[in-house]
């Protein structure tokens, strides 16, 4: 069976295999046959060693066979020596020698041979051919591109020029510029996740200067609420939760420090390269005094510490936790789905299995905190591994530290019970074949800092593209790459590759300033377009992949709740802080009685306590964050449960009543009240038709109720609730 040499062989036979044309037989080969051949046959028949002169490196090799003759006769399992060998019917021809294959694997091989021993045409032998192939765009260096010249005069910025260059050839003409009120609402929700207040609206609409919009952008980017909005996007990517996810879902009160660090990092525009380094290796940076904010850097490693926990005891099923760490790291920073490489070389991207275990080794060499689990109660294992912030033991963070450094073995077929060869921790290319590999760890190091430094090299092909795309995605509703955490071959191709490279280049050139990039994006004319478009443009580009209009989007869960609270006057704008968990001495949760709580608050939704095993009831209804898996884009569904929420939920009714009281206090005249109401919820005055109709219905209701006391408040509260459930409130154009 495979020994130490197998790794080399795995590397040798590595090939960027692509699924071809949906041939089920190829899928079968990839899912059932390749893993078996790689793990059970190649170690002895393939690379340096070709026992019996037989090579499994290619279909041809199998057909040519070895000393005993052809190993495979396509279509004829009964005549194929390979089949006889894995069946073990003849004592002197029993393969693999150490341990028979599972019955299912044997049956699969029989089927595969009988179906013609199909093998991807661009595969091995192919080791030579794959080198000629043009590298996948995302793994090639970012190219500096100059924006095209816009001869129509429409473009106001480089971004506009890139977009406009595609329009005429596609039969698309740009939409009109959006009205200023629409723009105000769009930008406000976009940058701070809240609608404008009445004063803000009045000020902006009264400012006739050509610089008014730029001033608005700057004001919103400087608002402390900006970090609460944009930090939340990163929390999705980091699968942030306030609990550990073990079988009893123990709380992690200290996770909130990491949440607040993210919010502050966005607010003070922490350069993205530092943002990355802090989250992967902040503890090391603090120790080496390579950061101006050692306290924050330690807290930032919450990104790693928050890996999902499993089981009922400390560090139980630990390989699953590390799998989450590797997977989330790959998706978040590199836009790669590394998880595929846990069991076999990646099927689509040039990521050998050893790269997976290189990263795995770095995290296996890291000391993670333990927040408690069932055994916390039953066996009194104390919480441990929390890290002191700024050398001060009184403030502990849920972060990581360097652990016992050790290189790990490849887990063949992803099974910890089948160790393969040892891989140096941290070192890998992760598909970036034009780069030198990430530096391997020095003695005594986990290798996380070397990895982080490698990721933020200015010439890294993925890091800047991935974050620039995420930023674009949240401004426009869809990334230039529509699969923001998958830049590999199985992900979507960029609709505007030159623009993406231009954005990535600008980002690095600006010193990795996220706000500078955002300013450039929202100042573009393309961002300021209206949502309605001429019919021919709609027909030519129904999905708006060319950005010739602004795609409306339903507010996300947080914005819906925050906007209702703002409009009702109940929003508590205090930032940061801890959840009211019970004191640790009272913790007694078990898998039989897991932790479960919902804490009421009128603060912004980013401060709601989110668990791993129980969804927050409000966030669940509106496609809130998945706390278990790194999420790059939330679903924006429109469901009957949302309708039930608006129709009947007490929170909506409370906000509606509060708004009705505000309206009553502001004006007694129905028309004036209605104007306050629609301004607050829609950012515009009612049309005469709306006024006549809605005020008529309210009057009619009150009359039918005999104008009894209370009927006025009821009717206005009903109007407020209806406004909250209206499309004009829920969809931002």
């Amino acid at each position, binding site marked *: 069976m495979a020994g130490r040499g197998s790794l080399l062989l795995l590397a040798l036979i590595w090939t960027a295999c692509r699924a071809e044309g949906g041939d089920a037989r190829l899928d079968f080969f990839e*899912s059932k046959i390749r893993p078996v051949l790689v793990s059970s046959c190649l170690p002895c028949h393939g690379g340096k060693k070709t026992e019996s002169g037989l090579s499994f490196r290619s279909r041809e090799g199998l057909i040519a066979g070895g000393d005993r003759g052809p190993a495979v006769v396509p279509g004829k399992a009964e005549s194929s020596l390979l089949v006889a060998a894995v069946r073990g019917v003849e004592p002197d021809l029993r393969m693999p020698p150490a341990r028979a294959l599972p019955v299912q694997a044997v049956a699969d091989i029989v089927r595969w041979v009988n179906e013609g021993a199909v093998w991807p045409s661009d595969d091995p032998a192919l080791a030579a051919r794959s080198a000629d192939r043009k590298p996948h765009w995302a793994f090639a260096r970012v190219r500096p591109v100059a924006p095209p010249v816009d001869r129509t005069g429409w473009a106001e910025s480089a971004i506009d020029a890139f977009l406009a260059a595609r329009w005429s050839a596609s039969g698309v003409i740009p939409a009109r510029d959006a009205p200023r009120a629409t723009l105000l609402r769009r930008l406000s929700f976009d940058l701070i996740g809240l609608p404008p207040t009445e004063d803000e609206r009045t000020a902006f609409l009264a400012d006739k200067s050509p610089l008014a919009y730029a001033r608005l952008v700057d004001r919103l980017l400087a608002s402390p609420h900006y970090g609460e909005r944009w930090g939340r996007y990163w929390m999705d990517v980091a699968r942030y939760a306030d609990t550990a996810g073990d*079988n009893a*879902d123990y709380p992690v009160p200290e996770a909130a420090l990491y949440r607040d660090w993210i919010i502050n990092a966005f607010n003070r525009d922490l350069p993205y390269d530092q943002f990355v380094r802090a989250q992967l290796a902040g503890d090391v940076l603090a120790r080496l005094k390579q950061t101006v904010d050692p306290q924050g850097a330690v807290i930032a490693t919450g990104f790693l510490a928050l890996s999902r926990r*499993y*089981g*009922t005891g400390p560090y139980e*099923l630990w390989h*699953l936790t590390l799998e989450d760490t590797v997977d989330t790291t790959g998706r978040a920073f590199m836009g790669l*789905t590394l998880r*595929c490489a846990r069991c076999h070389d990646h*099927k689509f991207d040039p990521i050998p299995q050893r790269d997976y275990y290189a990263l795995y080794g770095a995290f296996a060499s890291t000391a993670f905190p333990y927040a408690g689990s069932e055994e916390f109660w039953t066996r009194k294992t104390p919480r441990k591994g929390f890290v002191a912030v700024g050398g001060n033991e009184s403030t502990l963070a849920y972060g990581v530290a360097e652990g016992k450094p050790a290189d790990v073995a490849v887990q063949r077929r992803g099974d910890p019970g089948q160790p393969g060869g040892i891989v140096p921790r941290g070192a890998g290319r992760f598909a970036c074949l034009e780069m030198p590999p990430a530096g391997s760890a020095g003695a005594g190091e986990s290798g996380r800092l070397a990895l982080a430094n490698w990721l933020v090299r200015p010439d890294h092909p993925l890091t800047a593209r991935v974050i620039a795309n995420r930023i674009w995605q949240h401004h426009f*509703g*869809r990334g230039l790459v*529509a*699969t923001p955490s*998958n830049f*590999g071959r*199985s*992900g*979507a191709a960029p609709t505007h590759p030159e623009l993406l490279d231009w954005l990535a280049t600008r980002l690095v050139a600006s010193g990795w300033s996220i706000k500078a990039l955002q300013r450039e994006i929202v100042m573009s004319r393309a961002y300021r377009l209206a949502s*309605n478009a001429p*019919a021919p443009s*709609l027909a030519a580009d*129904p*999905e708006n992949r060319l950005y010739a209009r602004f795609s*409306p*989007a*339903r507010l996300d869960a947080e914005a819906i709740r925050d906007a209702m609270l703002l409009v009702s006057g109940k929003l508590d704008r205090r930032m940061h802080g801890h959840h009211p968990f019970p004191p640790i001495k009272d913790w007694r949760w078990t*898998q039989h*009685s897991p932790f479960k709580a919902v804490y009421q608050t009128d603060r912004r939704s980013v401060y709601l306590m989110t668990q791993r*095993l129980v*969804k927050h*009831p409000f966030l669940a209804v509106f*496609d809130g964050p*998945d706390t*278990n*898996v790194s999420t790059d884009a939330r*679903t*924006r*569904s*429109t*469901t*009957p*449960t*949302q*309708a*039930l929420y608006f*129709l*009947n939920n007490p929170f909506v009714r409370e906000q509606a009543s509060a708004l009705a009281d505000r309206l009553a206090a502001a004006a007694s005249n129905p028309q004036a009240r209605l104007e306050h109401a629609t301004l607050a919820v829609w950012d515009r005055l009612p049309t005469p*038709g709306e006024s006549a109709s*809605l005020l008529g*219905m309210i009057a009619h*209701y009150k009359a039918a109720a005999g104008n009894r006391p209370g009927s006025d408040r*009821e009717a206005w509260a009903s109007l407020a609730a*209806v*406004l909250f459930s*209206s*499309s*004009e409130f829920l*969809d931002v154009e």
Partner: protein
Amino acid sequence: MNHPREIRGTLDRRCFLGAIATAAGVPLHAALAQAAHDQGAGLRAPRPTHHAPRARRLLVVFLTGGFSHLDTFDPKPTLTRLHGKPVPSTGLRPEEAAARPLLGSPFRFTPRGQSGLMVSELFPRLGAFADDLCVIRSMHTDIVEHFQAVLAMHTGSATVPMPSLGSWLSHGLGTFNPNLPSYVVLCERLPYAGVQVFSSGFLPPIHEGVRVIPGAHSIADLEPPPRPLALAELERMMLRDIEDRYQAEPHRQARVRDRGATFEVARGMMHEAPDALDTAREPARVRALYGVAEGDRTSFASQCLMARRLLERGVRTVEIVDTGSSDNWDAHGNMHDHVPKALRVDRALAALLGDLKARGLLDDTLVAICTEFGRTPWTDGPSGKGRNHHARAFTALLAGAGVKGGIAHGQTDDIGESIVANPVHIHDYHATILHLMGIDHTRLVYRYAGRDFRLTDVDGEVVREVLA
């Protein structure tokens, strides 16, 4: 065949068709091709099957905690004979391995029905339906922890979060009644792994199991706040007025129409779900059959009756979770702890099977009665009367549409420790259920994060021997 009832209520035909087409989950950004496809097709509209289905609805009865195969449906006379003999045992963790005495079942088994299927005295009434039951004695799963094993039984994955069986069915088949969810989970107390058990995972959220907590507030926000009827009508009129004006611009029409449809469905649910869930509307004779007492809204029996009412109203998948993550079938200390658990479900399950049969519903309803794992043939703990978790062999049942009744499939060894014939992995169990519902489990895929995912991962074989 008993077909789901016509949609009743206040919906007119146009609204009804609209509701079917857009009953849910319409992403505003067609960011991914899949989402666009789903949107076009209507996420819950009935969809064609891969082959002719034997079953059109699924009822899952999940008995939480790991009921013992050795004390229910897999009799082991040898184990009784060797009672007390120490054998090397494997603990939950390697360090717990030790020699432990074998434990014969304290319960008597008798042949039941025409088939003579062996059923223990724990299930006297369910045993009367022996000829309808297909007992799979050779189930096995991958992990012996409750949490992971419960997830595996529901989602096929013991580790990473994946969509539940009922969510896959909603995605693959749609549903019959747009006024009700396509996957309803009757669950008074959450099982291990909580809501992940009926999560839609990466599938559109409309496919998530809707948990019904039997009692006063069974579905969140289903009940309107106390208010005059005229006020509800005022709101409805104002919303329609506002939305009609808003959609005057053509680019808004689709969004407004889709959202309007969800409000119609929600009102449909407000109208239909309370009735569907109200077992008090059943005749006294039927309630007596199940064992539902006057005023009882929360018992297991009452949930069984609710399940029937939901199935006949066209819900695609109904699951009953008998109890939560404590006080369940997890009999470490004493196998006699199975007695109250069995007593709680035996009569109602038998009544449910009988009722489905009498109404013809069993002709197109598949019933799956299962648990997360089995229990060891040796004792656990100092009392010497209970059993530990056991993943290498356990029992699950199938009954109803398309299933051979009165048979036992698969075989465990003389003490029920390991499987000696026809192993059925949980992936195989799922593949078989999907097959009966008309779905090829290898073709029910969803592309997520760059790869096609399936309920059965890359495994699973249909257990053809149990198909009628």
